[in-house]
């Protein structure tokens, strides 16, 4: 019987999607495959920028903790929600 495991990897948008996204410094995001565009706030923009450079959750958390004044449980909670939202929105046709 295989044990169900939660993979942190599964939180992140897949590598191909991250690579194709056009992200401007003002937080404007464009997905050339779906044609959808989005507005990210400053924190959201920083998160996606880091993920485009390194698709690594640990590194992402470390970098955000270095740059932002917040505790680890707030970071975990907000990342869980935000990354879910990003995955969901980028999946839409």
């Amino acid at each position, binding site marked *: 019987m295989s044990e169900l495991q939660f993979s942190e990897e599964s939180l992140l948008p897949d590598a191909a999607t991250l690579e194709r996204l056009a992200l401007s410094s003002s*937080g404007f*995001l464009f997905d050339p495959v779906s044609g*959808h*565009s*989005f*507005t*990210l*706030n*400053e*924190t*959201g923009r920083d*998160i996606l920028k880091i993920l485009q450079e390194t698709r690594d959750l640990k590194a992402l958390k470390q970098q955000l903790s*270095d*740059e*932002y*004044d*917040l505790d680890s449980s*707030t*970071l975990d909670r*907000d*990342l869980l*929600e*935000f990354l*879910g*939202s*990003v995955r*969901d*929105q980028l999946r*839409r046709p």
Partner: protein
Amino acid sequence: MTDARKPWVKPSIVMHRSGMVNKFGSVQRSQWQDQLAGVSVAALVEEHGSPLFVISEQKLRDNARHLLHAFATRYPSVRYAWSYKTNYLGAVCRALHQEGAWAEVVSGFEYEKARSLGVPGNEIVFNGPHKTRSSLERAIAEGARIQVDHLDELYLIESIARETGRRVPIGIRLNYETGYTENWSRFGFNVESGQAMDAAWRIANSDSLELKWLHSHIGTFVLDHRAYGAAARIVAGFMNDVEQKTGCEIDAIDIGGGFASHNALQGIYLPPEQVVPSLDQYAEEVCTPLLEATYERVARGRPLPTLILETGRAVVDDAESLITTVVANKKMPDGRRCVIVDAGVNVLFTAFWYNHQITPTRDLTGAPEETVIYGPLCMNIDVIRKSILLPPVRTGDTLIVSPVGAYNNTQWLQFIEYRPRVVLVHGEAEVSVVRERETLATVTELEQLPPHLAPTDHDGQSPDPSR
């Protein structure tokens, strides 16, 4: 060494949607305020808890004075009667009575409350379709201004008058078509059908009743001020007609209430600033036809009938706000953000028909997102705002809901949660508690447990299946 790290703002992503542009302009930068009537919101919450109703006594008094000024500068004889059902907190009523307002009540309970607050009977306007014999007996004995809703009440008053050997002055409530509002025909006597004139005839033929006042109340949150012009013309016309036909002498016309406040009704696209008439506009509509219709009577040396106003909402609504605290953030499957706050529809009854203004108490950063604001009740109907553009908020953030002074402190329910404290800001930013928050004792005070259901030492153990 100081921490140079940036403040964390909840990350957000908002999809652009075509065809949803607001033709009146782009999203405004969020406005915020951290004080209510000159008192810090944070300090209020720390001392009195959240949610918290906050009333500004000064604003309440200013509104009452503004109303009276608008009418008294256009018509020489005006009297204001405070509509108890709109907000019968003792502090609200007393402040308005100190401003010279009579009481307008619609039940035996409200009558008792007005008397307990020191209002003499002859300064109480007694309206409504249900007046019990005992409340009528008291009102008659104390000289209250009774306005009759139906024939059964008329006959009941006549029987009390005969029993007590009094001649009782009364008013009748009229209903009619203004052409601008739906006729509230369930209240009073209809003018067009002749019902009102029949009632006046019946009163004229009574040895113990006297028709002295005419009352009408055309609706609630009436946005078309022209409706009041039509109402004043019809009531004044009826007054002239009924005096001529029955020989009575009317000394007051009560135009009721119904003026809109600066709240946003759901389903109305334009903001209150653009659709709600000013008190001066309402006053102009009422007073001009009244003066025209009474011109002859003044020429004959008779006094003008007193104009009585029962304005509730437009006086109290923006004098009160509700502070509520964010308890959770959620993301809905359709992408909308949802915020759960600690004040629900049990204390904010008006959330069912208004899009209340929601004001943050700090400068919220981040892009505004479409957000639903839910209350704390475990009930699907507990929605404070169905849709509002709001930047991300944190748990513990406070929001100000306004205006909430009309009908919430009377229609609220003790349901699931305790009702919160109400405070009054007065003088130099002094704060007084005017209604205490509820406790378990408040809720259970009127309950009784039959002895066989009383808690025992055995509670918590499994029941004996043999019993």
